[in-house]
């Protein structure tokens, strides 16, 4: 999506809340929090206080977040239960200290990450799940659920944060441009397409998100981290590139349900991926 474009999206959404002059990053952050308060359910308001990233320890907020992340809809094709939050202060302190350290690593290594992550993310909460390592949802934009695996390396953590930040920026991009012509149609199973990372038929919104995330991860490796030999969170680059190009074709076959903006994003991903020499990343 590009750092400048993401910043412009944030500015436009922020100005929609309050059209007066934006003085600095903190001012912009405060207005994005206002935007989240408007589009997210009221019970999540506790996540959007203050100008710094919140690491959620409050039991009522943990409970509200877990509930929203577990809401089921026709657009959820896979059960990703956020099973249990903990309010054991020692465990939360241990986990949140680790996340703070890993976010700092991402800030040091990934150009542009610090500013965008600061603006886009309101809060992080830890809750256990057997199904996944964390996630984000369009019903709770700006809120990041984490359940890391103990074997994740520093690079896996950085990929995880970039992965979830990409989803969040795409949720915001959707609000700015509109991505789908009909939500009802993308809920239908006959309109599913192949996803980039899980490589299976999924709702079109998931496929578009998977293509964007997969492309960002490959570009992150290509430009910053290097291509890992045995990555734990995402597949090796050669596999991601191959499956993402298939996913792009599969999504384009359903173009009737995508707006011009979404098709443009898919073309940008395709151009990036076709210009990476896959043979060196076996």
């Amino acid at each position: 999506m590009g750092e400048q474009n993401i910043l412009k999206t944030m500015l436009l959404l922020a100005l929609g809340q309050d059209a007066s002059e934006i003085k600095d990053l903190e001012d912009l952050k405060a207005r994005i929090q206002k935007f989240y308060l408007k589009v997210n359910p009221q019970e999540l308001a506790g996540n959007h206080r203050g100008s710094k990233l919140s690491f959620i320890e409050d039991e009522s907020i943990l409970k509200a977040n877990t509930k929203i992340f577990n809401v089921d809809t026709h657009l959820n094709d896979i059960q990703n239960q956020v099973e249990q939050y903990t309010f054991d202060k020692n465990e939360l302190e241990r986990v949140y200290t680790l996340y703070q350290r890993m976010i700092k690593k991402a800030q040091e290594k990934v150009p542009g990450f610090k500013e965008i992550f600061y603006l886009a993310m309101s809060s992080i909460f830890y809750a256990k799940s057997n199904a996944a390592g964390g996630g984000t949802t369009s019903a709770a934009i700006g809120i990041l659920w984490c359940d890391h695996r103990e074997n994740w390396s520093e690079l896996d953590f950085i990929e995880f944060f970039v992965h979830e930040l990409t989803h969040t920026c795409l949720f915001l991009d959707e609000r700015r441009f509109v991505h789908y012509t009909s939500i009802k149609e993308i809920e239908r199973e006959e309109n599913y397409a192949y996803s980039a990372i899980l490589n299976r038929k999924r709702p079109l919104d998931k496929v578009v998100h998977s293509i964007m995330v997969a492309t960002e991860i490959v570009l992150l490796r290509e430009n910053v981290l290097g291509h890992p030999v045995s990555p734990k969170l995402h597949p090796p680059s050669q596999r991601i590139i191959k499956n993402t190009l298939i996913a792009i074709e599969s999504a384009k076959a359903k173009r009737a349900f995508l707006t011009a903006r979404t098709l443009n994003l898919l073309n940008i991903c395709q151009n990036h991926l076709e210009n990476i020499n896959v043979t060196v990343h076996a």
Partner: protein
Amino acid sequence: MRNLTKLLNEITIEEVKQVNERVNQVADQYSTESELPQVLRMVAFDQNL
């Protein structure tokens, strides 16, 4: 902040209005077209699970 100032100078009132309309359009899409609450849950799967 230099980046922000440059971007802010490019933004017109008309563009902000248009984006506000689209924000409402997306909210309507989810509230009227879908039978269930708006949730597009995205998850980072652990390959080893």
